[in-house]
């Protein structure tokens, strides 16, 4: 039951115009860089993209802004991207801003079969407008809905052919929730190992959530803000 594909193009070819795509990553850390490049080449349009950020102008999801493939963006922070602002102000791009924790939880809920949950986040702010309010133990909460996507792009460190995934450091971030919330989840990884080579106690995303696995070469892994101290 190998899920290994030898070209990202094959996997991306299933994605249709108007699809909802969930992408892992935080800033440029742990982003599915090969899949995004392949999606750009595919030319698919009118995408709804759910991701914490939208890359930068010339890397990550920002590339899909340049080619105007994104119709709507659901994100928590999009401040690193001039194209984004332009297209939003032009009315070319719809935007739904979601608090980061609510976004993570909505994706987790979507993947876990939970259609909605209550949270205190956003109560009394613009985010709460039009949402159901409910009081539990004297505190007010709003209802937020689960998110699922037609496709999810995930970047992991290691995988086996069944699609079990292990992430590295803070490159984990939204990838596990994206993997669960995608109807078809495509994982790109730095290292593909044989079945049985991953310690079952160390697996972060069980293969059941993953449809395709692709081993990428020469990851760029761009750093957004290099901060160092003198050695």
């Amino acid at each position: 039951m190998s899920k290994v594909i030898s070209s990202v193009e094959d996997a991306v070819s299933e994605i249709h115009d108007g699809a909802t795509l969930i992408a892992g990553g935080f800033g440029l850390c742990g982003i599915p860089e090969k899949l995004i490049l392949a999606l750009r080449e595919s030319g698919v349009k009118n995408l709804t993209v759910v991701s914490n950020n939208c890359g930068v102008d010339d890397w990550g999801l920002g590339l899909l802004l340049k080619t105007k493939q994104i119709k709507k963006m659901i994100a928590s922070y999009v401040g690193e991207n001039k194209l984004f602002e332009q297209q939003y102000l032009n009315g070319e791009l719809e935007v739904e801003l979601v608090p980061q924790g609510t976004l993570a939880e909505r994706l987790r809920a979507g993947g876990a079969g939970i259609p909605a949950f209550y949270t205190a986040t956003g109560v009394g702010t613009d985010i709460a407008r039009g949402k159901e309010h409910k009081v539990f133990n004297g505190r007010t909460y709003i209802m937020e809905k689960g998110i699922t996507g037609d496709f999810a792009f995930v970047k992991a460190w290691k995988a086996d052919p069944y699609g079990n995934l292990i992430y590295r450091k803070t490159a984990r971030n939204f990838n596990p929730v994206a993997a669960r919330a995608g109807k078809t989840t495509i994982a790109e990884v730095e290292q593909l190992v044989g079945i049985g080579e991953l310690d079952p106690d160390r697996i972060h995303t069980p293969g059941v959530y993953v449809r395709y696995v692709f081993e990428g070469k020469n990851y760029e892994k761009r750093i957004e803000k290099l901060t160092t101290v003198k050695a």
Partner: protein
Amino acid sequence: MAGKRHFILERALKEIKDGMNVNLGIGMPTLIADRIPEDVHVMLQSENGLLGIGAYPKEGEADPDLINAGKETVTVVPGASYFDSAESFAMIRGGHIDLAILGGMEVSEEGDLANWMIPGKMIKGMGGAMDLVQGAGRTIVIMDHVNKHGESKVKKRCSLPLTGQGVVDCLITDLAVFQFKDDEMRLVEIQPGATLHEVQNKTEADFLIDDGLTSYQ
């Protein structure tokens, strides 16, 4: 300006106690990390999925897979752990982070905070701020008392879109320290170099003056 910031950071530092789990917001709050004394052991949380932020890496040793919520390359301390975003916000929203220190644009006398959006300016997004102010055990806001035009940022009502309603437990500015409790805003300290008169002049909000006010002049 550097002096003002120094007093704010030093005062905020006093709120950080040994054994705490703390989230320091992007910008000025991040600068507190370097000031924490070695004998005060705290675990710094980064909402992108790290508990136990360390110093910035040495030149040439930055790891693209290891960043903080401000997207800066960092290192970790012994005892650190990595986790996914849902776990990170379970931690934050479930009340497991003792203290969040965030920057602010406006704070109202009701303890409302606005710190994420200026209408008419480029939209950026709230990131994790709305989650932190609701979830953390205590929320401390640090900011300049007045804006560039000399107008009070400590308001009767926030004019900017809110990050959270009634969420501020403590406000530390370059002029004063206020606490919010039982629907009351209370001036509890005056910063070095400031006077009560100055605080009163530069504060739009109505506030009580604490009996034990320190640095009363």
